[in-house]
């Protein structure tokens, strides 16, 4: 096998050192404050995606079609990214767990509607209860989701 090794100029490394600009701390502070400016807009869009996911759950039956599952997976993955960016970690974890369930079920060739519905209920809970007092209970629910996935697909295997 022929392997070619070439060195290209990294222009970014020259540009980043040009006079002017801002300090690393200023750059991080500005990025965080810019993110805050779109927080409400993004979280409202995320809530719509959660509702969309809950609505679509009805169409995912005991024998779901691959297209419906891919759609659920993509929406859940998006919810995970948006929730996590704005500190909604538990909502993000529930959405991530749904991605994990769908992916591992596809890999294992198994499907459990109750496991899917458990995730839908968890998402409903995360959406309705954001109280400080409910945090521990939500944590227990999230731990339970992991056990549910393991029960359906077997323990997670090493990435291939």
């Amino acid at each position, binding site marked *: *096998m*022929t*392997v*070619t*090794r*070439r*060195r*290209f*100029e*990294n*222009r*970014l*490394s020259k*540009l*980043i*050192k*040009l*006079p*002017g*600009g*801002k*300090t*690393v*701390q200023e*750059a*991080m*502070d*500005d*990025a*965080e*404050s*810019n*993110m805050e*400016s*779109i927080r409400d*807009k*993004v979280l409202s*869009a*995320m809530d719509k995606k959660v509702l969309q996911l809950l609505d679509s759950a009805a169409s995912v039956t005991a024998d779901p079609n691959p297209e419906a599952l891919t759609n659920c*997976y*993509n929406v*859940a*993955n*998006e919810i*995970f*990214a*948006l*929730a*996590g*960016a704005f500190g909604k970690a538990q909502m*993000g974890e529930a959405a*991530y767990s749904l*991605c*994990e369930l769908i*992916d*591992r079920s596809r*890999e294992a060739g198994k499907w459990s509607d109750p496991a899917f519905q458990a995730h839908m209920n968890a998402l409903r809970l995360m959406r309705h209860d954001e109280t400080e007092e409910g945090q521990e209970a939500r944590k227990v629910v999230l731990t339970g989701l992991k056990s549910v996935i393991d029960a359906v697909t077997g323990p997670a*295997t090493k*990435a*291939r």
Partner: protein
Amino acid sequence: MPSPSTNPKAKINLERATVLLMEASSQGMDILVQVLNGFGVRTPLRAMSGASAMEMVKSHLLDLIIVDSQLSDMDGYEFVKWLRTSKIEPNCAAPVIFMSGHTQVSNVTKGRDCGASFLVAKPIVPRVLLDRVIWVARENRVFIECTTYSGPDRRFKFAGPPPGTEGRRHDDLPLEVGTASTPNMSQDAIDSLLQPQKAQL
């Protein structure tokens, strides 16, 4: 808090950098644009599909590409693979930061082999993303092209071949230092290598 590898008082200038952002979700794109604007990037290019990103690769000189694993018409892995083998120079070797939320089991090897410079896990955290931008700006890895892989050299730790193996490349060195095969250098030769330099304060 910045990461230990980045001095918070160090200056960075991204005003003149041409950055292409690729993200299928409009909210995800909003977040990226706000974060990159905060870093000082003036007008990042935006593409929600692989097709429009390919057009931008052909028409702009790019300094950094940030790509999500899910695009509207293809996955991000396919795009990076296309970029690395496109022969569109110098963009084919531009630094690529690859973002991924949940990674499907079937995509783990694709992530390793697509040719991205760095993989970043979502959700986006400004501190982490800035750290990676600075990291890819500092690095200058050799660009490898062969039938199975095109992209920056994935061996950037230089830890030698795996223990118990001789390595597959002609320049692989064993981890253990063997007996010297040439005479020691003279003190004069060593001194000539260590030339005093002015310290810049």
